[in-house]
């Protein structure tokens, strides 16, 4: 690929690079309008597309672009003598005045447009799909990150397993304890309920307590408890003792 093969599509020019150079050298295209950086970018893109580095083409391009830049730089700093010799002071002032006048008119036209725009600010009309105005931003109250972490951690924890142990529960017969407690009070007169059931399971303790209530109901035993949750003392009821006494005396 050689530099003169380069096809350009610039704002001020479209065509091959060598035509651009010809137009510039003939003063048919003002170099001030040509963006040299765009030419360099176009060349680099072409070089990348090729993949291989062509040193000869790069060298030629550098020389041409270097020359173009020098010409442009000279154009940016014109020789004052050369320009001054063409225009007399009055002509130069006239030219400057003409251009300033032109610009002033455009400035006033821009002011007219700005004023017009201001007066049209209450005219609303459909313009394709109407874009919605941005909604006012609502800031949420400040949040503690740790609280979120804690909440998530709670959710992420494995839930405790569901116990089905109660489904296999069998209540021991209350009668067993009725007989046992009757035998105990006959033998010892009194005993501590808590001591007697200490070794039993919870369900057996419950059945034992029911038996105790049954005995109390039928007045076979008397119950004493010094304080709530204190040990329950079970003793023979007075009725039982008097009947026993009667039996002994009659015998």
């Amino acid at each position, binding site marked *: 690929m050689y530099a003169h093969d380069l096809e350009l599509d610039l704002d001020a020019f479209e065509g091959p690079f060598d035509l651009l150079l010809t137009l510039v050298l003939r003063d048919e295209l003002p170099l001030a309008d040509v963006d040299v950086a765009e030419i360099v970018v176009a060349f680099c893109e072409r070089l990348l597309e090729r993949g291989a580095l062509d040193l000869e083409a790069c060298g030629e391009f550098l020389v041409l672009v270097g020359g173009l830049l020098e010409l442009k730089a000279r154009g940016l700093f014109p020789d004052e003598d050369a320009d001054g010799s063409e225009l007399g002071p009055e002509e130069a002032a006239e030219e*400057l005045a003409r251009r300033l006048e032109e610009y002033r008119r*455009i400035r006033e036209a821009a002011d007219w447009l700005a004023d017009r725009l201001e007066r049209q600010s209450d005219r609303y009309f459909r313009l394709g799909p109407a874009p919605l105005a941005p909604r006012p931003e609502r800031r949420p109250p400040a949040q503690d990150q740790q609280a979120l972490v804690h909440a998530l951690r709670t959710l992420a924890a494995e839930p405790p397993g569901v116990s089905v142990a109660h489904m296999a529960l069998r209540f021991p017969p209350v009668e067993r304890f009725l007989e046992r407690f009757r035998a105990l009070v006959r033998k010892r007169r009194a005993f501590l309920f808590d001591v007697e059931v200490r070794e039993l399971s919870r369900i057996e303790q419950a059945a034992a307590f029911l038996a105790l209530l049954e005995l109390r109901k039928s007045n076979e035993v008397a119950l004493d408890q010094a304080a709530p949750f204190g040990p329950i003392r079970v003793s023979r009821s007075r009725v039982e003792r008097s009947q026993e006494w009667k039996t002994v005396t009659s015998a």
Partner: protein
Amino acid sequence: MEDRHLRLIVASPLDRLGRTLEALLIVASQPLSVEELAQASGVDPSEAEAGLELLAERYAEGRSGIVLERVAGGYAFRASREEAEACERLFERPAERGLSQAALETLAVVAYTGPCSRPEIAHVRGVAADSVVAGLVERGLISEAGREAGAGGAVRYRTTPLFERVFGLESLSELPRLDDLGGDSEEIRARLEAVADSRGV
């Protein structure tokens, strides 16, 4: 007797045409010319104009929330000025929001001298116009209009119908004459000559 249909509202042909025009204008997102409206309604342009006159009266400013306006070489519905406050709460105006002085000057150059190229705009304003032109193209206020004659001609730009609509212009001829703007040119010349004299040129 039972074959006769009872019609409570009998629309006149003009009324009927008015409804058709209303429907076309409410669907359109840009101004429609008399020719376009006539063609779509299947009537002559003169009939369409008569229908539009009827609508212009019905949708005059202050009579409804909708106003029929003549803008950008055609007819279009817009919101009544009285309802601008409510519209402003819901819609924004991307095309004309935050137009800078540079953008307005560039628009003025394109509107008065277009189609014109970026170098021509830069020549009048004295500074490069590349980014301003790109911004105006993006807003849809100007668009490309071919290239300058000859090999490698620069892209030229002109204003769009949206420009006329945003600025409420029926056409570009509503712009003030450039010769009427710019103030006293003699004053500029005198000032320049005074500067030249003071420097001994």
